[in-house]
């Protein structure tokens, strides 16, 4: 009971902080608009697209990107907590490290999901066809993807000791994961040596799954059930590693 209450209050703190950060919320609306409207329109008219509308193709990718960036940055924000001392208050509290990890993960995950839902709503506004089926499939998928991404962020944070490494992570983790996920261009047309990098990226399967349920007529990389299976296995693995990483640190 007390562990659940601990998890709850850590979750609540994370979500409260997220909702109060106005600039981030505004940014979360602006960034996908820039990608979808400017980048999307630009490429749509400069590429001879192979049978689909580029913006429609880009939309699931931008959903994935939003989840990735939010989950990663907020996950890494644990370093901030540590640097500014707040982590101490949590670490000396009589709750287990597993609960601390769980509370953080759920809190950051919820925040990333809120961002994702905002982008989903934006999509509906700019004319992406989103019916009940698409939403009913996409939202649980997004949650599944988010869990893994948040865990990566938390694990990285537990390995890092200073705020300086924050920018490094953005360059060496966020960007490659985004570019190598198939968010911006289809994987199937790439040369083999580059394809491997995509197959190693868990986000590739997330973006592929999102496209499968949102885009009509998308030729998936893998059948949906395999995508989901891979994401689930990945989630489980990072949850185990994350829990370990958190309990190890003193």
């Amino acid at each position, binding site marked *: 009971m007390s562990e659940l209450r601990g998890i709850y209050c850590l979750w609540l703190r994370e979500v409260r*902080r997220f909702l109060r950060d106005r600039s981030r919320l505004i940014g979360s609306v602006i960034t996908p608009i820039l990608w979808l409207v400017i980048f999307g329109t630009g490429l749509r008219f400069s590429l001879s697209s192979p049978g689909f509308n580029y913006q429609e193709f880009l939309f699931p990718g931008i959903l994935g990107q939003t989840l990735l960036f939010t989950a990663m940055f907020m996950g890494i924000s644990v370093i901030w907590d540590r640097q500014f001392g707040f*982590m*101490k208050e949590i670490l000396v509290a009589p709750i287990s490290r597993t609960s601390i990890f769980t509370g953080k993960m759920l809190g950051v995950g919820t925040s990333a999901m809120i961002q994702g839902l905002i982008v989903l709503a934006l999509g509906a506004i700019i004319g992406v066809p989103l019916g009940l089926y698409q939403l009913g499939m996409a939202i649980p998928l997004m949650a599944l993807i988010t869990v893994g991404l948040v865990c990566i962020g938390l694990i990285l944070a537990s390995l890092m000791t200073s705020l300086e490494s924050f920018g490094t992570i953005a360059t060496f983790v966020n960007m490659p994961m985004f570019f190598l996920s198939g968010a911006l261009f289809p994987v199937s047309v790439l040369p083999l040596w580059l394809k491997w990098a995509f197959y190693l990226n868990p986000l590739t399967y997330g973006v592929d799954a999102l496209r499968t349920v949102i885009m009509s007529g998308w030729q998936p990389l893998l059948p949906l059930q395999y995508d989901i299976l891979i994401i689930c296995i990945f989630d489980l693995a990072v949850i185990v590693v994350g829990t370990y990483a958190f309990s190890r640190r003193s």
Partner: protein
Amino acid sequence: MSYIIETSDLVKRFGNLTAVDRINLRVEKGEIFGLLGPNGAGKSTTISMLCTILRPTSGTATVNGFDIVRQAARVRKSIGIVFQDPSIDDKLTGRENMEMHADLYDVPRDVMRSRINEVLQLVELNDRASDMVSTYSGGMRRRLEIARSLIHYPGVLFLDEPTIGLDPQSRDHIWNYIRELKKQEDISIILTTHYMDEADRLCDRIAIIDKSRIVALDSPHNLKEQLEGETIVINSKDNDLFASKLAMAGLADKISTVDEGLNLSVKNAHTVLPRVVEVAAANGIYIESISLREPDLDDVFMHYTGRNIRQSSGKELSGMAAIMRRRIR
């Protein structure tokens, strides 16, 4: 068990640096116990071990009757801690920080609300409780942290440098709250400080720590009494010459040069003082001022370590750094 904290040969090593070297102390129920020493002496490390944040390399201790290694979870539930560095979330309101703490420590929901109001009242923050902590001053944050550490009715309260980086007025305030706390709550308080006056005015007993070890332990009064001496503070036109002449005359046990002039440690100032003036007159040294001073804890520290506590300070920055960090955020 009559002691609220009891340590036996507590040791902490980091690599080949010994941060805490066989510390033995017993804290009685209801007292304010101070760990006094320069920065880097091992005070915070000792506290961290007692709070179960750090595991001792060897030796052990009990807090509230629980073993700090084998019963860490029970120790945690029974203590309150105010860290040296700020540890509140300034993107939340004062009350939200409080509620979070109550949740973490599983304070029963039916008493939570009234208890939070009670402790906020104690530190006079109830009318600011709905404001974001980012709008609080340094002193207010400190008070909020003290209030927070009390929510779950701890038997022992640990205060690690409770007034570091605060202005004199805020320090005064905090001291008052700590005294008030001792009266109102059934609690024992253990605090670390490198401020002599803080230890002197607040603590029932203090342990002086230097270079990882306890060098003296008693009430401030007894510690000063044991020095059996007084200090004559004297300033002249030529302090160096005066010092050498006084040394030749053998009037003082010890002569040291300080900012204010010369410090003469003597057994009985009233009989020595006239002789000192004679020495000055005989050598044509012009005396600008003379005053008598009862020994303070600074002298006690000097007596046991041969150094002044301010000179032996390692990282005064930590307080400033803490303030800077608060700003940056």
